[in-house]
């Protein structure tokens, strides 16, 4: 894959993963009638309304009842349907946590939970922040956890999900995320993408923070530091090889995620490093185990030190 193209972005094009999701879902729903879609009074928000318009008979808006929605999804999946279930990350993973665990993960059902408003992207306060979701979902046996590296990638994830066994948790933001990939590329669940090569340090990021890691890498390049940037879109099962290779080849790793630093990407990377007995410089960036304050996402990322500037300065101090 042409790595250079990712380093040359000047104009920041922002699109909404939710829009991409809604369109893709309606599209694949036309070719695969196993696909059913559920939401809990959020079809206008998460854009499952596109599917509702295209396939109303296979769309179920359960009202504001997330636990029931997950149970219904389990029942539909038992009968061979492929339910895509969408609500906000906080409600999908906490309000309905036990239903996801016991009714979906335990019997290993093919349910796709596409959670919107992951991390601090709503800016609407802790009631609507999904800042622990990946930690919770990662700890559920049988569950696959994915946070697409740019808003267009959700389309590829949805396509790949049709032939992936077992439940999946797919986490996107609120919308208006910057585009990272300017040309087509191969996508594989569980296989990270090195979006920029480098030998001095590796920035491993997930979700919307992949963009910030790339921007940080550009700044580091101006200081003569060649940073590798990895889009770790799949948090579980995590791409161990890429982590091991990055640690051995670059000797320093910074992780970045719009999530509590406990239990998400940073933790997953640390687990691999520790078990592989690899000692390297290491720093986790994310929400520093606090309930996020109100604010615009970019301002929040800056406040908590995981925007491009935060990643840049953490990388610099790690190498100094």
């Amino acid at each position, binding site marked *: 894959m042409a790595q250079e193209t990712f380093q040359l972005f000047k104009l920041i094009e922002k699109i909404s993963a939710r829009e991409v999701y809604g369109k893709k879902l309606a599209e694949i729903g036309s070719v695969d009638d196993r696909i*059913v879609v559920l939401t809990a009074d959020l079809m206008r928000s998460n854009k499952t309304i596109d599917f509702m318009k295209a396939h109303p*008979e*296979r769309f*179920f808006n*359960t*009202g504001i*009842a997330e*636990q*029931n929605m*997950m*149970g*219904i*999804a*389990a*029942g*539909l*999946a*038992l*009968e*061979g*349907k492929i339910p895509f279930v969408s609500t906000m990350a906080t409600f999908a993973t906490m309000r309905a946590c*036990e*239903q996801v665990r*016991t*009714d979906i993960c*335990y*019997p290993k059902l093919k349910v796709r939970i596409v959670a919107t408003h992951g991390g601090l992207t709503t800016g609407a306060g802790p009631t609507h922040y999904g800042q622990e979701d990946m930690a919770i979902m990662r700890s559920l046996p049988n569950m696959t956890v994915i946070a697409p590296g740019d808003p267009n990638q959700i389309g590829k994830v949805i396509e790949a999900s049709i032939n992936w066994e077992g439940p999946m948790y797919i986490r996107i933001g609120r919308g208006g995320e910057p585009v990272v990939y300017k040309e087509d590329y191969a996508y594989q669940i569980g296989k990270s993408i090195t979006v920029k090569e480098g030998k001095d340090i590796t920035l491993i990021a997930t979700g919307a923070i992949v963009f910030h890691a790339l921007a940080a890498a550009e700044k580091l390049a101006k200081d003569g530091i060649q940073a590798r940037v990895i889009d770790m879109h799949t948090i579980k099962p995590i791409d161990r090889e890429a982590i091991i290779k990055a640690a051995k080849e670059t000797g320093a790793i910074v992780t970045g995620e719009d999530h509590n630093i406990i239990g998400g990407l940073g933790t997953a990377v640390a687990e691999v490093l520790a078990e592989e007995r690899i000692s390297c410089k290491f720093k986790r960036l994310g929400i520093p185990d606090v309930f996020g304050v109100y604010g615009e996402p970019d301002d929040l990322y800056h406040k908590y030190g995981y925007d491009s500037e935060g990643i840049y300065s953490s990388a610099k101090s790690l190498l100094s």
Partner: protein
Amino acid sequence: MADKSTIERLKDQACEMRKNMLKLCHVGATHIGGDLSAADILTVLFHYAMKYDPKNPKWEGRDRFILSKGHAAGALYTSLAMAGYFELDYLFNNYRKLDSPFGEHPSDKVPGVEIPTGSLGHGLSISTGIALAARLNKKNHRVFALLGDGESQEGMVWEAAMAARHYKLGNLVAFIDRNGLSLDGETEKLMRLEPLADKWKAFGWNVMVIDGHSIEQIVNAIDNLPPVDSDTPTVIIAKTVKGKGVSCMENDVNWHAGSIDAALLEKCCAELDEARKRERGE
């Protein structure tokens, strides 16, 4: 209405099922009180109401059964064994053993079990999803769920009650094993459920209230279900007695769960046989 010989056969089977539940309770701890209260309902479901093929547990045309009160696993296992899904000895020899399919709450490793249950309140939502799928697939099987009365305190039950009526799932039938007791005592003292029938009526369901230990009444309820393609799901509130049939266990929360020794097993089985003989007029 079923003929007299069918009713007598079902009564024999219910007696046999209770004895099998007790044998299992001797192998290892079961929720015997709630197993016994559900015995007559399950007997009618598995030996009268439902169509299924024990040699082909995933047969598409089967009626689905979801044990929402998953702690009554002993009742489900003995029902499935007596229905021909596996041998009773296979159950007795493996119950609660390491890596066994048979644990205190049912897993889908057991042939005939659709989905693991045990966390209360979940089963009606799952049943709603299964019934929805049947509608999408234009199939005419029914979905039967068995709920405990105590679990009706869970909010999720009422979310599902709303949804099943909203989606017009006349192919869904919920039994409530209304034995009046949960672990900590009487449901009405713990958290009042009554007027339970009125609640279900208010949610738009077709409601029947029956004696859950009268085989005739359970059969009659099954015979009078609305057509599968009707818009209204049915709830059958079956008034039962926890521990039914074993006098030392009846209405005693101490028999919510536990195991019994060989002497008690013998005594309980003798009591059941004696009662059945009297009922037959022998």
